[in-house]
C-alpha cells in the first residue's frame, strides 16, 4: 500500500480553508452593502410617503369641508355636530387613501385625525392629526396641524346659515353671489312674531364668505362710500356675537367661539319715514334661541339715489363698531 496519497489529500483539504474564507468575505461584504442600501431605500420610502400623506390630508380635508357645506345648503338640514362629522369624514377619506398606499407599497401606515376645531381667527379651521409610517426597522411618527382657510376657497364657500333658517319659508335665489330672500325672510321673522318684519321683503345678503378688507371697521363710516362698497360685495366681519363657521353648519346664529357677521340689506324704498325694525345683522335676525335674540335697530339711510332710499337698521353697538353715527 502507498501512504503518500493520504498526506496529499490531507493538505488538499487544507486548501479549501482559504477558499471558504474568501467566500465568507464576499458574501458578508455583499450582505452588508445590500443591508445598507435597503435601509436607505426604506428610509427614503418612509420619508416620502409621510410628506406625501401630509400634503394629501391637507387637500382632502379642504374638500370635505366644502362637500359638507354644499350638502347643508342643498338640503337645508343642519348637521348635529359639525366638528365630529368633519373629523369622521376626513378620517374615512384618509383611510381610503392609506389603503391605496398599502396596495402599492409594503408599508405600515396609520393616521388618526385628532380634531377639527376653531382657531382664534374665525376664518381659519384647524385640523390636527398623527401620522405613523413604518417599514421594517424604520418608523416615522409626525403630529401635523393643517389650517383650512375659508379665504382660500375659489369660489368662496357659501354661508349655510340663511339656507338652514329659511328652509321652509320659500326659495332663496342666488344671483351674482347674493341671496335674494323674496318673502322667505319675512315669513321666517313673522313665524317668530318679530315686529316690523315687512321691511325685509326682497332683502339681500351675501351668499359667499369673503373677509372684509376695510379695517379698522370704523372706516366704514367715512363718508359711507366704504360702507356702500362693503355692502355691494357682501363682506363678512369678525364678531364675538356672530357664530363661527362650524356652528353655522349646525344652524346656530350665535356661539361662544370667535365668529363673523354680515349685513342683511333691506330692499331700497321710496318711503323716507322709516321706523325701527330687526337689526340688519345676520346673527341678530337669525338668533331664535333666546327671547330677545332678534333685537331692533333704528334706520340709518346711507344713500339716496333717484328718489330711493338705501338703509340699514342698526343698534348703537353695531353703529359704533362700524364708525356710523349713533342714535
Amino acid at each position: 500500500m502507498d501512504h503518500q496519497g493520504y498526506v496529499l489529500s490531507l493538505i488538499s483539504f487544507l486548501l479549501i480553508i482559504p477558499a471558504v474564507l474568501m467566500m465568507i468575505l464576499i458574501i458578508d461584504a455583499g450582505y452588508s452593502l445590500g443591508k445598507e442600501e435597503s435601509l436607505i431605500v426604506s428610509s427614503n420610502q418612509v420619508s416620502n410617503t409621510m410628506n406625501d400623506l401630509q400634503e394629501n390630508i391637507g387637500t382632502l380635508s379642504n374638500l370635505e369641508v366644502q362637500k359638507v357645506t354644499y350638502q347643508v345648503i342643498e338640503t337645508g338640514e343642519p348637521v348635529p355636530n359639525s366638528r365630529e362629522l368633519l373629523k369622521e369624514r376626513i378620517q374615512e377619506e384618509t383611510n381610503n387613501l392609506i389603503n391605496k398606499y398599502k396596495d402599492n407599497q409594503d408599508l405600515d401606515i396609520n393616521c388618526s385625525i385628532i380634531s377639527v376645531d376653531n382657531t382664534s381667527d374665525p376664518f381659519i379651521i384647524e385640523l390636527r392629526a398623527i401620522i405613523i409610517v413604518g417599514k421594517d426597522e424604520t418608523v416615522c411618527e409626525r403630529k401635523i396641524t393643517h389650517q383650512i382657510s375659508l379665504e382660500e376657497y375659489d369660489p368662496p364657500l357659501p354661508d349655510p346659515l340663511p339656507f338652514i333658517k329659511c328652509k321652509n319659508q320659500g326659495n332663496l335665489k342666488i344671483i351674482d353671489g347674493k341671496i335674494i330672500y323674496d318673502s322667505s325672510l319675512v315669513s321666517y321673522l313673522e313665524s317668530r312674531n318679530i315686529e316690523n318684519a315687512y321691511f325685509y321683503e326682497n332683502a339681500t345678503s351675501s351668499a359667499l364668505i369673503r373677509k372684509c378688507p376695510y379695517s379698522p371697521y370704523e372706516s366704514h363710516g367715512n363718508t359711507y362710500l366704504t360702507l356702500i362698497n362693503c355692502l355691494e360685495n357682501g363682506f363678512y366681519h369678525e364678531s364675538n356675537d356672530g357664530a363661527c363657521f362650524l356652528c353655522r353648519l349646525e344652524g346656530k346664529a350665535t356661539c361662544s367661539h370667535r365668529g363673523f357677521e354680515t349685513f342683511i340689506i333691506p330692499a331700497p324704498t321710496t318711503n323716507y319715514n322709516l321706523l325701527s325694525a330687526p337689526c340688519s345683522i345676520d346673527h341678530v335676525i337669525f338668533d331664535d334661541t333666546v327671547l330677545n335674540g332678534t333685537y331692533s335697530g333704528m334706520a340709518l339711510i346711507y344713500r339716496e339715489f333717484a328718489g330711493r332710499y338705501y338703509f340699514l337698521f342698526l343698534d348703537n353697538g353695531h353703529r359704533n363698531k362700524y364708525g356710523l353715527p349713533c342714535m
Partner: protein
Amino acid sequence: MKENGGMVFSMEIMLAIVVITVIIAISADALDISSGRFYRISESHSVDIIANEAANILITTPGSPCNWEEYDVDTLNDINPGLSAIDKDKCSMNNVLDIKKIEKLREAYPKLIPGRILPLEMHSSIILYPLNQDLATIKVNEVNNSNIKEVYVVNRTVSVKMTTWKPLVTINIKKIIEEDNYGEKCTHNGFFSDVHYKPDFHLNHEGWICRQIHITPSDMDNYDFYIFQEGLILDETTFWFMDQPDNIKSEKHTFSSAPICINENIKKILDEKGEGVIWFHIHFPAGINESSKVYVVAIPRGTSSDMLKTEYLTPQPYYFVLKVWY
C-alpha cells in the same frame, strides 16, 4: 522490519508541500488584493452615499428648527440646516428651496456643514446653476478643487423660490377667462362716479378688472411697490389708476415694459394715515392677449434693480451641484 517514518520526508512529499505552499501564498495574496479592492469600493461607495444623503438632507428637509435662517449666525450651535421651503402648514415643499436659507448657509457655511451634514474631515462646495441663463449662478461655497484627485459630485434639479416678495395683486387673463371669475366689485358703481363694467373676454368686450390691496404702516416702511406686466398692449387703451372708496378718482397711467414703482402714488393716496385699502383699477381693451398678466408686488426695500424681473415671482429651476472630497 518495515519503517514508515521515512515516508514523510520523501522527495514527493517535499514537492507536494512546495506546491501547496505556493497555492496558499497566492490565495492569501489574492485575498489581500480582494480585501483592498473591497475596502476601496466600500470607501468610495460610502463617500458616494454620504454625498447623496447630504444632498437629500439639504434639498428635502427645511432644517431644524424650520425657521433656522432667522437666527443669528453666532447662535447656530443647536440647529441642523436644510434648504427646503415650507408652506403655511410647515410642510416641506417638494424640491423647492428657499433663497433665504441658501443665503444663510452661504453666510455660515463653515459652521453649518462640516460636522453636521458632512464629516469634519470632508471638504465640499455647493453651487446652483440656473437653467434660465438670464439669472445669476448662486455660489453657496465655492472652492478651487483643481488639485484634488477624487471628487464626488451630486447633481440634482431643484426649484428655487427666489424672493421674499409679496404679490398683492395677480391678474392672469387666461385664468380669468377659464374660470369666468372677474373678482369683486370696486367703488366705481355709478352712484358717485363712472361705472367700471367688467370686461367680457369671450365676447371681446373691453372693461375693468379691479382689485383691492391692504397696505399697513409696516408695509410702507419695509417694502417698495412695483407693477409688472407681461403681454399687454403698451398704448393708451390699457391703463391703470388707484384710489380709495372715500377718495374716488379717474386717472390714466399707462403701462411700460419695465417695472413701474408706485411708492409715491400710494403715499399720496394714503397720505398721513399710512394705512388703508387701495383699489387698483385696470382698463383692458377688446382683443386682449390671453397670455397677458399684471402683478402688483411688494418688494423688500433695498432690492437691487437688476433683480426686478417677473421670473423672480415664481420658483425657478436650478441645478444643485454638491461636490465632496477628502
